[in-house]
């Protein structure tokens, strides 16, 4: 128990939360960018043009098949070499998670838009709605219902994946945990266990309510 008390000494607990905030800031900015860009890319993916189809397909497949850590390495180590761009760990992280999130979000948008049956459009026009009215009152509300639960799911995936940034040198919650463990290795040699348990539950406490909320909406809106 003395090992757990390390967290209460000095600013240790505050620093751990600051580290957690770095993780959350990175994932939330990536999620927001992914949602905006994903909607645009998703619309682009629904086009019937074979060229745009091939391009978006190749982008989606490449990003999906590569582990996110590989993409992080490509951005962090590769871009510097190829373009002379010297990105910080945090910038590479937001870049990579946005590129990945946009692909996932784009595919969700494409799926949601194409899953709206043809007759929904036809009926809307038959009722005398203009094209814009049909979208605002008929198509978009239905698309959103199919889109929001998986988008929330993507958010928790993003938060969990953000833990990888510690491997490209970003000081986030895991790194702060390591620093606290290192600094106290003589007066609290067993701190590692407790600190990693605390970090484990911090992630759980953030992701669990979000995924619960997503499930709730999914059950409520099931058609």
């Amino acid at each position: 128990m003395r090992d757990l008390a390390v967290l209460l000494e000095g600013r240790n607990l505050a620093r751990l939360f600051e580290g957690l905030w770095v993780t959350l800031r990175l994932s939330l900015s990536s999620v927001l960018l992914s949602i905006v860009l994903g909607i645009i890319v998703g619309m682009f993916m629904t086009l019937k043009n074979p060229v745009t189809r091939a391009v978006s397909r190749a982008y989606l497949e490449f990003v999906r098949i590569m582990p996110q850590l590989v993409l992080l390495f490509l951005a962090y180590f590769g871009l510097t070499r190829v373009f002379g761009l010297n990105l910080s760990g945090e910038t590479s992280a937001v870049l990579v998670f946005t590129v990945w999130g946009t692909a996932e979000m784009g595919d969700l948008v494409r799926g949601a838009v194409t899953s709206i049956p043809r007759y929904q459009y036809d009926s809307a026009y038959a009722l005398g709605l203009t094209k814009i009215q049909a979208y605002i009152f008929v198509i978009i509300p239905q698309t959103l219902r199919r889109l929001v639960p998986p988008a929330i799911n993507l958010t928790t995936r993003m938060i969990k994946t953000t833990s990888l940034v510690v491997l490209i040198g970003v000081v986030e919650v895991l790194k702060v945990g390591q620093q606290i463990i290192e600094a106290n290795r003589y007066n609290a040699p067993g701190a590692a266990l407790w600190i990693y348990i605390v970090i484990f539950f911090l992630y759980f406490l953030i992701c669990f309510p979000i995924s619960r909320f997503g499930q709730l909406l999914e059950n409520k809106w099931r058609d």
Partner: protein
Amino acid sequence: MEWGYIAKYTPMYATAALLTLRIAAVGILLSLVVGLFCAVVRHFKIPILNAIAVGYIELSRNTPLLVQLFLLYFGLPKIGIKLSGEACAVIGLTFLGGSYMAEAFRSGLVAVEKIQHESALSLGLTNGQTMRYVLMPQAAALAVPALTANVIFLIKETSVFSAVALADLMYVAKDLIGLHYNTDEALVLLVAFYIIILLPISLLASLLERRMRYAGFGGTA
């Protein structure tokens, strides 16, 4: 791009890829076992075990694999449980994968019509026989898309194993970047090897998915 460098270090990547595949294979098989067990427990709502399964699934799905690995590899030795990097990797992957597989099997079980269960029971089959001969074959076929997606997801997740000192593909790439500064070659090999591993599996998965669409009973699938 130095092709000589690429040729020289390809065998090193191949060894690392085999390590990744070996651990992934063991981890995925164990995940399937854990997932099947949890799905059956949850389907029959077996008291106590059901609560444990629900708790486990939520914990595992809402925490990152990297944090789970740190806890296993750096945390547990403090209470005298020392595990090798490989053991941590397999346990971590199983802990993570078990819950994803459980959800996949469960979605399959939910999709099998209730009348199948009732008919089997009325024919005099026990609960165990019903599960084994009637429900699970159909549920597994329905769950194939989710199961293959999980397999690909879990293989991708193995990329964090370098954090517990396993010489996997990421580890080799990082090592070579640090040693020789041949960043381009190291990264090209890294991407190439992940494509070699994942592309065939991904193609196989979509093939299997298409085949399994015919496996449903009657009009349910």
